[in-house]
């Protein structure tokens, strides 16, 4: 028989079942650590419900033992009272310390809560924070033991640092030492970002920085003898640091020992330390192995990047005679290491092949730290994984065989976006539904199991977008595969779109559904990274087709209200982009691109006499504009012009060439200068057929893509209103020069990158080649700021001053403000 005694609120049967003991079960006496009884005690103890557990054998009859389980319940928490802080903080305190009712109150809980709260307040600068917790038993509880808890929080006053005193300092300036103390700052009303406070752990870190500052300046023996904290009556503290500076040292002879792979000369070039230089232990350490930069230019990496995983480099001071230190840099090269197995873990969404093709460390290859680092960076850039959490794990490292396995651990992150929005704009309600999947798997699209919630893992992009208002509807679909065919990084992309636009009916103030303009477009493209001349070159090709269909819809674009027009074109582009490192704020490299967009030369083979049509059109235009003629004659002429234009634009015939080039160069520190040149030309194969009114250039303003029907290109030129520097129909030729100076305000922050800029720009567009004059430019200058946040993209504001008059005006344009969303100049 088993009985349960003691003060417990649990039923006897529950306790017995939980303990795992059963009537009629065989038990061993005396108990050992393996016995059922010991196991039962352990099980009950692990439940965290009891403060004491005893199992007795109450009596033995023959080979039958009766057991007694004696239990004492832990008291449960009933109520928490907090004193000394604002009510609004109560919830946080209770949540952080898990002080919800029903929690078992142990000594440990009380102590950790006290410590946690005290250290939290100390970290905020309440140096004298004191937390005491008292518990009191609840007397009215019937079946359970319960206690109330009272938290007495005495925050004390916020303590600031009044003064930092260095004793024994002669050689270095106090200012320099204070600057080295990154965390602990003296009280100063001007400094807003870094508040003065004293936190012990941070202060200790600062003491190390002080010594490092000495070491950097040759004081190798500098040390801190003691430091003390003095409380002042006005709620501040003074910090006293007692120093011993020691002597200043310089370098003597530096010798390399044990290097067989690299020559002394090469190693010296990396070390960059000469005899007679001021001894700098910190710098020496960095040149040998820079812990702060995993891809730093140091001796350790020289070996690590060429397979010498097991190499070790130790600088040893061989003599320190008369403050001159002779050094020996002892190198143990070890065997070169080779990768054996490469594996990836954590990819519960992305398929292996998408990841492995990006990995630069392959089985059988010589170990290279640089390859590992590059792999991590490139896996991060895929956008499927959290870039901060990609880790290389070295496994089965075997120094004897010179082999190692590498396991990349990744953490998937959501890479799909859903956009659903509604708003007023363009004269009515506009609704948008956008879906974009950045790690799609099109091959799984018909597999039912793959929908969790969508087929994912092949690294493809799929986007769908629907937009509708009373006046127009747009549907678009696009898909791209970065490794088309799976053998090479040739990206394939395709898109389909359809836009329906209705004419505004002023009578009903509504859309007139009978008068509409439809545009249907389709494009297919391939882009390939080249290896010659170097692997920054990308060759891209695309075929696009657009069909314009008008029904009783007159716009400035067409002289005919009914009819259609087709734009079938082939685009080929060559670009080279080696800008680095941060795509938001490049500090080096350049970006060039040349593109050509061509249609077929229809007029060569379609046997239409465009010359005759051109002459007829000119005649008809004369009639149309002749106000002395009757209306019906003029209308007939207008109809004939429409007919002729319909013939001319049935298939758009054109070629278009563009060039873009920009350079990034550091000026001082992180300040970057960016010169940029742009040029574009739109031409016709048949001059009688004429240059099409589509695909034209519109210069001026912020250059952001407007709602464009006709393939127009908006070219930015700050300091002037949008598209103000081109004629009504747009230019067929343009050029632009720009010089921008950028200064980073903050780049390190994860939340936002901000930089300021100043610019000089000049550019112009021309209606035809005869007017082209590369020196008749519209000039401007100005300044602005850019803010990049991952959730919003790039935002910015620019103030530009136009020095030249707008077309048709006489005075200079003056200031113009531009708001920039999601585009870079």
């Amino acid at each position, binding site marked *: 028989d088993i009985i349960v005694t003691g003060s417990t609120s649990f*039923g006897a*049967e*529950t*306790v*017995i*079942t*939980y303990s*795992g003991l*059963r009537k009629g079960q065989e038990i061993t006496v005396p108990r050992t650590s393996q016995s059922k009884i010991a196991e039962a005690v352990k099980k009950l103890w692990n439940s965290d419900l009891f403060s004491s557990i005893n199992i007795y054998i109450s009596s033995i009859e023959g080979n039958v033992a009766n057991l007694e389980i004696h239990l004492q319940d832990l008291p449960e928490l009933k109520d928490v009272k907090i004193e000394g802080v604002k009510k609004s903080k109560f919830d946080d305190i209770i949540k952080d310390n898990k002080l919800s009712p029903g929690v078992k109150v142990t000594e440990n809980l009380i102590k950790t809560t006290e410590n946690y709260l005290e250290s939290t307040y100390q970290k905020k600068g309440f140096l004298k924070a004191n937390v005491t917790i008292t518990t009191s038993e609840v007397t009215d509880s019937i079946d359970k033991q319960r206690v109330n808890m009272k938290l007495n929080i005495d925050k004390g006053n916020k303590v600031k640092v009044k003064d930092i005193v260095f004793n024994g300092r002669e050689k270095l300036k106090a200012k320099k030492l204070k600057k080295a103390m990154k965390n602990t700052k003296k009280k100063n009303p001007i400094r807003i970002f870094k508040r003065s406070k004293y936190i012990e752990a941070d202060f200790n870190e600062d003491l190390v920085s002080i010594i490092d500052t000495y070491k950097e300046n040759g004081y190798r023996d500098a040390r801190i003898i003691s430091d003390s904290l003095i409380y002042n009556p006005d709620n501040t503290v003074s910090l006293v640091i007692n120093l011993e500076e020691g002597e200043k040292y310089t370098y003597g002879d530096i010798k390399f020992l044990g290097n067989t792979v690299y020559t002394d000369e090469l190693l010296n070039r990396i070390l960059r330390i000469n005899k007679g230089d001021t001894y700098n232990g910190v710098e020496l350490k960095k040149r040998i192995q820079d812990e702060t930069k995993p891809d730093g230019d140091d001796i350790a990496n020289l070996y690590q990047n060429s397979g010498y995983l097991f190499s070790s480099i130790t600088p040893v001071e061989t003599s320190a005679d008369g403050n001159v230190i002779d050094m020996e840099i002892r190198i143990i090269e070890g065997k070169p290491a080779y990768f*054996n*197995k490469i594996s*990836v*873990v*954590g*990819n*519960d*969404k*992305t*398929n*292996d*092949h998408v990841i*492995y*093709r990006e990995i630069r460390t*392959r*089985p*059988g*290859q010589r170990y290279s730290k640089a390859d590992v680092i590059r792999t991590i960076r490139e896996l991060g850039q895929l956008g499927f994984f959290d870039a901060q959490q990609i880790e290389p794990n070295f496994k089965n490292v075997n120094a004897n065989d010179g082999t190692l396995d590498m396991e990349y651990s990744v953490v998937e992150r959501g890479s799909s976006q859903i956009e659903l929005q509604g708003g007023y704009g363009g004269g009515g309600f506009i609704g948008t539904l956008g879906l974009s999947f950045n790690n799609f798997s099109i091959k799984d699209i018909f597999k039912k199991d793959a929908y969790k919630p969508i087929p994912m*893992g092949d690294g493809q992009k799929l986007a769908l977008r629907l937009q509708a208002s009373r006046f127009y509807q747009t549907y678009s679909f696009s898909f791209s595969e970065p490794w088309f065919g*799976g*053998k*090479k*990084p040739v990206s394939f992309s395709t898109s389909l779109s359809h836009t329906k636009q209705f004419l505004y009916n002023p009578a009903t103030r509504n859309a007139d559904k009978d008068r509409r303009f439809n545009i249907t477009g389709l494009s297919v493209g391939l882009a390939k990274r080249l290896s010659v001349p170097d692997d920054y070159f990308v060759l891209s090709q695309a075929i696009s087709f657009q069909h314009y269909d008008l029904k009783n819809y007159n716009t400035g674009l067409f002289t005919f209200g009914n009819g259609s027009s087709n734009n079938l074109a082939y685009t080929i582009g060559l670009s080279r982009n080696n800008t680095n490192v941060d795509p938001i704020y490049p500090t080096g490299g350049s970006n060039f691109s040349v593109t050509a967009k061509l249609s077929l030369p229809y007029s060569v083979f379609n046997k239409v006499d465009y010359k005759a049509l051109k002459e007829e059109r000119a005649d008809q235009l004369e009639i149309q504009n002749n106000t002395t003629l009757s209306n019906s004659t003029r209308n007939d002429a207008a109809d004939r012009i429409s007919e002729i234009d319909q013939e001319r634009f049935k298939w758009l015939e054109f070629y278009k060439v563009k060039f873009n080039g920009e350079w990034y160069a550091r000026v001082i520190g992180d300040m970057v200068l960016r010169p940029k040149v742009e040029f574009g030309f739109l031409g016709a194969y048949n001059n009688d057929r004429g240059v099409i009114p589509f695909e034209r250039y519109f210069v001026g303003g912020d250059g952001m893509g407007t709602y464009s029907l006709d393939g127009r290109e908006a070219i930015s030129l700050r300091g002037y209103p949008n598209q103000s520097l081109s004629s009504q129909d747009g230019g067929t030729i343009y050029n632009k020069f720009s010089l921008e100076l950028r200064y980073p305000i903050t780049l390190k922050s994860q939340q936002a990158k901000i930089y300021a800029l100043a610019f000089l720009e000049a550019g112009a567009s021309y209606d035809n080649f005869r007017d082209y004059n590369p020196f008749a430019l519209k000039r401007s200058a100005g300044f602005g700021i850019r803010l990049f946040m991952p959730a919003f993209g790039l935002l910015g504001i620019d103030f530009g001053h136009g020095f030249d008059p707008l077309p048709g005006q006489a005075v200079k344009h003056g200031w113009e403000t531009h708001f920039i969303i999601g585009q870079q100049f």
Partner: protein
Amino acid sequence: CSEFQKAIKSEDIAVKFKMGTDLYESGKYRKALRLFDQIVPKYRGKPQAQKLMYMNAKAHYEVGDYYTSNYHMERFVNSYPESEKAEEMAFLAAKSYYHLPPVYSKEQKETVEAIEKIQSFINAYPNSEFLAEANKMVKELDFKLERKAYEIAKQYHTLGPHNRDYEAAIKAFDNFILDFPGATHKEKAMFYRLDSAYKLAVNSVESKKEERVRNAIEYYDSFKSRFAESEFLEEANKMNAELIELQRQYENKG
């Protein structure tokens, strides 16, 4: 108001238990689970708990909620190791793991875990009636790991020209053949290893060519002796002929 709704709202746990049992026995697992969810904590420590835990765990299994079913089943086995249902529960717990892993091309930690769980079931119940099925599951899961390793090695082969690296494929197939001695993909693995070695040899720089030709011929020999009837043999023979020709040139020179 149906009887089920009444049972859901009822205060009497015995009513819920009865109704849940009926639903369970007639195969309406989802409805049964809704009742079980309400009463499982209340029956803890009571004599009916064993039956209830059994039904609850099994119902989770039947509706395909394998994450939960293996948890309840393992708990059942721990709580009632002497029960006559313990073996069945242990088996279904292992089988729940079998259902969890994703496709071979994604992370396989669940596969490895499932193999371990099923293996420990086999060790615990060596005479079980479920043994055959358990072995079959282990085989299937092993095959998944094999396929994963094979496809990764094969991709090194596919990307060989792009990466200008055939050694990665050779090394990866070497490891594959070593790790999966009885592999289904062994024939293909050995053939593509030969193919990689062949391409490495014929495209090699002169200084390493002789050695690489010799290695490739070795891979051919081991492929031919193991798979004399292979569908790839004709292609392999062609490679070999070319390699032998190259080797002869070196011998003549030497």
